[in-house]
């Protein structure tokens, strides 16, 4: 009964979405306030109906109702409650419900908080959002109904893929979808602006918080996924350039570019058509991620059940949404007023460079992901693109980005002073050299690349801190003055500082791990000792026990350093009988500077067990760096929301460098 209710709610949501996507759009064209206003209750109703549908499916999982095919295929009565709930989105149908839930949540947010938007813009944004809803709700109802019944119901379910039964992965998809779907807001705003034929700084002020929210969630989601791969897959790495990882990374890169170009629209009323295009591309890449995972065009660990019908539908959806938006773009963008011309050496010039390089980086990942397929389709020639390609192609593109990241924020809007900025960067150069020298003394004879990597990280961190210190006049004014300046600084400035610092920290972790990782693999019997990076690990015992839905062998490794006990590591090897699948549960001893990472493989009492130990220097910095970015995003977001609430001109523009947008809006003439 509950399942049928959920199915009904989905159908209802589709009907409401059809209304939401048509009538307000017509209303906006005819300037009919009543029709335009219809968008708000429609968005709210769509959201509520989707909540009911999602709730109904969750209820099926929580109560282990195996008469629902989806539950029977992906759950098991013995599964811990957390994974019963996360099982809802651990499969194709359920994850699509989560998709539309988040989509309608964003629509609802615009309906609820968008009172200060121009009515026609709001109506059009909600209409476009509703149109995306129609597409996805139709997709679920036509090809992937999660509420289908099974008769007779089996006694127990098939269980969820054990690799996915993990706390990190329980929250990875919701975060990732918040990011993917969040970019739908930027897309809806872009399409609405194209229909209106108008983009102004107020538009950018609206787009930025949504983009920032999506970007922050996506950063968190990718980090969780990477962290999960690191400790769950038990092979010590954290990023593999797997097609599906790339599918989430491309919208992130494009979204990062969008985040920065929207600043230029807001502050300088320029780069408008580019920003619109970027918003379309970013959401397009998000859709492509969804398509690639579900169509089986690329194979990967993450691939859902392959179904050509579904692949075709999503492709059709993508064609309508992105193709339609691009047609609109081709018609409308040329007539859009161009913003002011600007100097290459200026804040906006730096942001343009940032956009250019990030676009190249996105294209690099795009090509690397699709090239093998492309070449095979056109020439029949076979190649394989793996991590070597990405390391060789992606890293060099990102290096100038890092260089510029330190310089850009120091340049003023309109006309920057490059020599002046460089002069202020001597501290950063010094810091960078000091970091490189320190690395050299610590790791004499290390590869040249690692020194370069750290020098770049030092440069970025130095430049970022220099800029922040200058803004609050640290060390030039008494500390109390600096403190009050820091409090007075817009939160977005703090957010940017944190996010950029986060990237520097991340680079340290990534470089250290790729150059200095140590690993030892031995076949050990209880009593034997393994030495790595100054640690001695003694295998004390291996115990068998029974988990809720698995059997497990747990090793006990006593870790000693210089004769003193550090910790006990207990890596596990689990076997899930329902899915006939073993998993490894790594044990990690994390210090600020490194991870000591242990996993066990096959073995038995006579032959001994395979014990695998890694020493991964600075890996905790990778997660810390990503956390910095997420926190930076959140802090910045808290600023934005205030600003959107009170978008009075100049009110929040505290520093002298931010001229009001109206003064910058002199078009240089269309060509």
């Amino acid at each position, binding site marked *: 009964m509950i399942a049928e209710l959920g199915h009904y709610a989905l159908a209802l949501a589709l009907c409401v979405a059809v209304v939401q996507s048509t009538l307000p759009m017509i209303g906006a064209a005819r300037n009919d306030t009543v029709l335009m206003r219809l968008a708000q209750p429609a968005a709210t109703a769509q959201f509520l109906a989707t909540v009911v549908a999602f709730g109904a499916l969750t209820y099926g999982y929580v109560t282990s109702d195996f008469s629902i095919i989806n539950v029977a295929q992906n759950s098991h009565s013995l599964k811990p409650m957390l994974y019963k709930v996360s099982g809802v989105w651990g499969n194709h149908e359920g994850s699509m419900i989560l998709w539309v839930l988040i989509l309608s949540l964003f629509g609802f947010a615009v309906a609820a908080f968008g009172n200060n938007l121009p009515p026609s813009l709001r109506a059009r944004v909600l209409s476009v959002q509703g149109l995306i809803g129609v597409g996805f709700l139709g997709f679920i109802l036509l090809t992937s109904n999660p509420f289908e019944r099974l008769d007779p119901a089996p006694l127990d379910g098939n269980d969820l893929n054990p690799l996915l039964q993990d706390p990190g992965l329980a929250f990875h998809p919701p975060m990732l979808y918040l990011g993917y779907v969040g970019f739908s807001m930027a897309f809806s705003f872009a399409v609405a602006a194209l229909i209106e034929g108008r983009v102004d700084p107020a538009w950018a002020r609206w787009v930025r918080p949504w983009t920032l929210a999506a970007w922050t969630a996506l950063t968190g989601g990718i980090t969780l996924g990477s962290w999960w791969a690191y400790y769950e*897959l038990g092979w010590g790495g954290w990023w593999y350039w797997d097609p599906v990882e790339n599918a989430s990374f491309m919208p992130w890169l494009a979204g990062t570019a969008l985040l920065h170009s929207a600043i230029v629209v807001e502050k300088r009323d320029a780069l408008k058509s580019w920003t619109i295009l970027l918003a379309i591309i970013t959401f397009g890449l998000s859709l492509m991620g969804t398509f690639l995972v579900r169509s089986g065009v690329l194979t990967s*660990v993450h691939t859902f059940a392959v179904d050509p019908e579904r692949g075709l539908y999503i492709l059709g959806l993508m064609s309508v949404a992105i193709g339609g938006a691009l047609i609109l*773009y081709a018609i409308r963008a040329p007539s859009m007023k161009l913003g002011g011309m600007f100097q290459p050496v200026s804040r906006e010039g730096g942001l343009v460079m940032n956009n250019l390089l990030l676009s190249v980086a996105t294209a690099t990942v795009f090509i690397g992901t699709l090239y093998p397929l492309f070449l095979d389709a056109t020439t029949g020639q076979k190649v394989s693109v793996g991590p070597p390609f990405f390391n060789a192609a992606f890293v060099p593109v990102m290096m100038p980005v890092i260089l510029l990241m330190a310089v850009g924020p120091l340049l003023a809007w309109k006309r920057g002073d490059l020599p002046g900025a460089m002069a202020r960067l001597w501290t950063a150069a010094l810091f960078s050299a000091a970091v490189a020298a320190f690395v050299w003394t610590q790791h004499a004879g290390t590869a040249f690349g690692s020194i370069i990597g750290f020098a770049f990280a030092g440069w970025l961190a130095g430049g970022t801190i220099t800029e922040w210190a200058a803004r609050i006049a640290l060390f030039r004014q008494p500390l109390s003055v600096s403190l009050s300046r820091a409090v007075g600084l817009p939160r977005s400035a703090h957010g940017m500082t944190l996010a950029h610092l986060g990237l520097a920290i991340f680079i340290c972790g990534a470089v250290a791990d790729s150059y200095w990782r140590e690993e030892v693999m031995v076949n050990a019997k209880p009593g034997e000792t393994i030495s790595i990076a100054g640690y001695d690990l003694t295998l004390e015992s291996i115990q068998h026990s029974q988990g809720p839905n698995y059997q497990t062998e747990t090793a006990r490794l006593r870790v000693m350093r210089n004769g003193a006990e550090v910790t006990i590591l207990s890596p596990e090897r689990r076997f899930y009988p329902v899915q006939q699948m073993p998993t490894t549960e790594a044990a990690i001893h994390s210090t600020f500077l490194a991870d000591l990472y242990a996993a066990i493989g096959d073995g038995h009492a006579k032959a001994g067990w395979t014990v695998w130990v890694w020493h991964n220097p600075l890996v905790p910095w990778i997660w810390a760096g990503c956390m910095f970015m997420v926190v930076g995003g959140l802090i910045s977001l808290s600023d934005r929301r205030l600003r959107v609430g009170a978008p009075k001109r100049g009110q929040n523009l505290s520093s002298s460098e931010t001229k009001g947008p109206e003064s910058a809006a002199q078009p240089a003439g269309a060509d």
Partner: protein
Amino acid sequence: MNRLIYILPLLLFAGLAAYFATPILQGKNPHTLPSAMIDKPAPLRPLEPLLSSKPGLGPTSLTGDVQLVNFFASWCGPCRVEHPLLMQIAAAKTVPLYGVNYKDAPEAAVNWLAQLGDPFERIGRDGDGRTGIEWGVYGLPETYVVDRAGRIQYRHVGPLSRQTFEETIMPLVNRLREQNE
């Protein structure tokens, strides 16, 4: 001219969409990409053994029985997913399983097998990917069915699933065994 720039994204996207749609519309299952090599002799240059305890692969190793040849690498994530199934196939001894270690560092591959178990009867090392190119490998893992005469009969791209193994590969292996007897 200037207008063209604004139409360019649309054109690029149209090309991409058409390209994505082609295999689906033609009804190709991406996991069973037809191989140009079907029914042709498996090209096999001598491959040096990965492990000192096991033989490598040579031109004559693929004759005698029907066998599966699996291309794997330690850097390949999906290989890990299919590995437990390979171990079960090896334990059941229903069909010989040979491995080709594709573009991999030997130490990494040896460690990988030590951690997860070694399901292969023979393992050849294809360090430069030459053999992979000759077989038409495009994404790891890939599994080929090779008949008694050493001809490729089937190609599976991506991690092998139990269903594919039981419903497609084993019936084919049994059929091939009968045919050649």
